[in-house]
């Protein structure tokens, strides 16, 4: 689901079904880039969030929400993100007093909770409640969330959750406020992992496991007042939340109402018109193409149309296990043959994103600009032809599998490769069939795939490991190039084990290049996302990462 679909990881970040995200606006007369914002709104008012999602799940164990979207309003975690339009996203403490202290070997991480934190019912938020929340995420009936911690915590592979009375010893609640995590290997980014939903506290007496999804106990500035799937959810103030303990949330509006199952085209029209009932509202889904053009040309919209900076990486994966693409020279030839200019035009032109020549997403530490395969976005046909000749390849025919909405983009790839004599057959599939054939398939069904990726946390590890580690091939995982290089696996393990941030960033930058030298994917563009809000909404900011607005700091004017 890239343009016009959500990046793969972003799929559940802001809400599932998004219709036609489309050509995304850049900073033009008809829109603002990344930030809104009319200096500081105030406290109070009722914010409405329109979303095409039919349902919302408030269970941290099963959630894949980014730290700055819906669940973050209700549930705090050990750490949080500070996003701003003109600086990389920072890791900041949330429930904890700092972002975690690693042991010298990077295998033990200690967090200390702030004193006096309370759940909405007035019971204290303790180390034990965070431990319980994490343990729940191991239970079989509570799967579907982000699982980075599950493969890191010692003994996690055999643990099946707390409901049978067993506990995971590698999460140690030393006292009321001290939590110690014992990992099965050194891990430098554990502070980021502690910002994922499963690190939210859950009281032990929170009832039946599956009912928590609709009856959560809030630790954030809001509590869930009512929820009807398919219709609406209302968040009211959590009186037990103390703003002075929270660096990530401003708790601006008095209430937040989610209006579910909304058609993005209709909502976008309503917001463009700035109707009285939509002035204190924003659309969580990307603005559909038709309304995007309309909004850009409508002077009334102005900076209510907010466009992110370059975000999710859109790429062409080359199936390295496919017979036709096993030779790295052939894959390198494709790097030169692809016409990124035509691709970007098919996606809506300059406003849809910036050209990509590297892998790590902008806004993430460790990103370095470089270009291994020339600087011309239209490619280098002669170079590609000579590489194919060197490889002794003639009449190459490849199958490109895409989701239905990517047809125009796929044709641009097809035409680009045709310039060097490569025939591309395009096979469009529906989203479910695509998932079964590509991430969950055995790799025999495709040579090329169009996809995109937005990491779950702003760390290069979440950027590169899911796409290029050999353990991430098949079973629904996203190493779509089916790229297996033991040296790269080792280098990524080494970089992810490095505790010193600067040292880790340098290692990741090297891994980025090391991977692209093998040419498993062709980076195409870093896509931009556009959002619309009403005239009453202030502080509507999209940080450098991720390319989504930060719900936690939105206020009403």
């Amino acid at each position: 689901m890239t343009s016009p679909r959500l990046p793969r990881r972003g799929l559940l970040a802001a809400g599932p079904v998004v219709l036609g995200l489309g050509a995304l606006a850049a900073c033009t007369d008809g829109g603002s880039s990344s930030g809104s914002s009319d200096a500081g709104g105030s406290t109070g008012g009722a914010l409405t969030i329109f979303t095409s999602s039919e349902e919302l799940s408030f269970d941290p164990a099963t959630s894949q929400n980014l730290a700055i979207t819906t669940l973050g309003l209700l549930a705090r975690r050990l750490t949080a993100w500070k996003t701003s339009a003109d600086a990389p996203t920072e890791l900041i403490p949330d429930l904890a007093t700092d972002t975690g202290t690693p042991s010298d070997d990077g295998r033990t991480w200690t967090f200390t909770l702030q004193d006096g934190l309370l759940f909405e019912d007035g019971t204290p938020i303790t180390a034990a409640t965070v431990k319980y929340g994490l343990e729940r995420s191991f239970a079989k009936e509570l799967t579907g969330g982000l699982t980075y911690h599950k493969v890191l915590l010692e003994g996690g592979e055999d643990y099946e959750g707390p409901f049978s009375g067993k506990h995971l010893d590698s999460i140690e609640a030393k006292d009321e406020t001290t939590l110690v995590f014992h990992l099965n290997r050194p891990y430098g980014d554990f502070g980021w992992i502690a910002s994922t939903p499963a690190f939210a506290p859950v009281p032990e007496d929170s009832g039946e496991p599956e009912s928590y999804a609709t009856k959560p106990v809030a630790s954030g500035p809001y509590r869930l007042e009512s929820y009807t799937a398919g219709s609406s959810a209302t968040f009211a103030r959590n009186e037990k939340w103390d703003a002075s303990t929270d660096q990530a949330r401003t708790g601006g509006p008095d209430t937040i109402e989610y209006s579910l199952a909304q058609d993005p085209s209709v909502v976008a029209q309503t917001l463009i018109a700035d109707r009285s009932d939509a002035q204190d509202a924003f659309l969580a889904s990307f603005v559909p193409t038709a309304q995007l053009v309309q909004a850009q040309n409508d002077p009334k919209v102005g900076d209510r149309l907010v466009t992110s900076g370059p975000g999710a990486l859109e790429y062409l994966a080359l199936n390295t296990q496919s017979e036709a693409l096993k030779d790295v020279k052939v894959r390198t030839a494709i790097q030169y043959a692809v016409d990124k200019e035509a691709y970007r035009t098919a996606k809506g032109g300059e406003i849809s994103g910036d050209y990509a020549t590297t892998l790590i997403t902008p806004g993430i530490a460790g990103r370095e600009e470089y270009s291994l395969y020339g600087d011309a976005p239209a490619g280098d046909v002669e170079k590609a032809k000579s590489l194919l000749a060197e490889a002794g390849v003639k009449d190459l025919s490849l199958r490109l599998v895409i989701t239905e909405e990517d047809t125009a983009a796929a044709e641009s790839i097809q035409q680009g490769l045709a310039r060097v004599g490569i025939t591309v057959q395009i096979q469009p599939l529906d989203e479910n069939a695509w998932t079964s054939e590509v991430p969950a398939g055995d790799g025999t069904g495709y040579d090329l795939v169009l996809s995109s990726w937005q990491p779950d946390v702003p760390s290069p590890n979440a950027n590169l490991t899911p796409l290029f580690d050999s353990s991430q091939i098949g079973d629904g995982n996203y190493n779509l190039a089916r790229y297996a290089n033991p040296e790269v696996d080792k280098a990524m393990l080494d970089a992810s084990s490095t505790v010193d941030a600067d040292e880790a960033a340098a290692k990741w930058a090297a891994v980025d290049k090391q991977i692209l030298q093998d040419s498993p994917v062709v980076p195409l563009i870093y896509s931009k996302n556009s959002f619309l809000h009403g005239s009453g909404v202030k502080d509507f900011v999209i940080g450098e990462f991720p390319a989504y607005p930060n719900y936690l700091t939105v206020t009403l004017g």
Partner: protein
Amino acid sequence: MIPALQRVARSLGVLLVVLALTYAIFYMAPIDPALRMCGKPCSPTDLEAARGFMGFDRPWWAQLGSFLAAIVVGRTYGSGDVLVHCAAPCLGYSFQYHQDVTTLIGQRFPVTLSVAIGAVALQSVLGIAAGALAARRQGGIIDRVVAGISVIAASAPAFVVGLLAVVVVALRLDLLPSGGYESFVDGPGQWARHLILPWATLAFLNGAVYARLVRSSMIEQLGLDYARTARAAGLSERRIDRYALRNLALPLTTLVALDIGALLGGTVITERIFGLPGLGALLLDATSTADLPVIVGTTFLGSLLIVLANLAADLARPLLDRRLAVGGRRPATPTTQETSS
């Protein structure tokens, strides 16, 4: 009585076939609902565990058997300490909504019922009136206008008509809400205000079928011997129209019953455009998220409603035409316009 029982038995058979087909189709389709429940990253062990827990690791006929049994006796998912109960009549359990499908459908049904009742009432009244007027003034301006509108309505996509209605009536003229649903219990006024646009959209799209059916049947009826005789005997044209319309009762009943059944199963596009949390919106979401239990549950309910509506129309036929009550056979004339039985 015997034919009635036969019809009931036949309807049950149809339901079973639809269910078996639904299961078979989704079993053969390249869709794995467990992938959504596996988490990210997803290990092979987690994926296998998710499949097992949800019951998708068994052959389709075994899953179908469990589905049917659950309607009567309920069902429990998982094993050991980890159990999720679904009480009878259980139509499956959605692991995405964390709710049993019966409850989900129960929450959505009032919305769809509200849409269906109003839409069928409006479309049948408008469609029949337009058709009858056109037939009476055959070749005249009214006939041409009705024919023109019918062609547009029959060929316009629901999405375009709905979106146009929202943009013009709700956003530009600001006469009605652009979407959403208010419960009838909370206030019939607001309930109706939120439903006028969906009703009108559906009535416009479906009413054309009624208008065309009534027009052609009426023209045929008015040319039959009995109409000519009645006219010769000096009966008023209005009276003759009434006779002609009465003879259309049978095909129209079938059409209305089928429409009620189909609309109650959910109006996917209309519900999505107007932000109505009905069964259609539920089904649309389930399809995009591979929520198989919801797909099967709503498909089952949709088929059940169509079969029931059809059955009701079948059983009502003898009441509308006493000749059918005696021998259970179709009359030779004048209801040759029947679309379905």
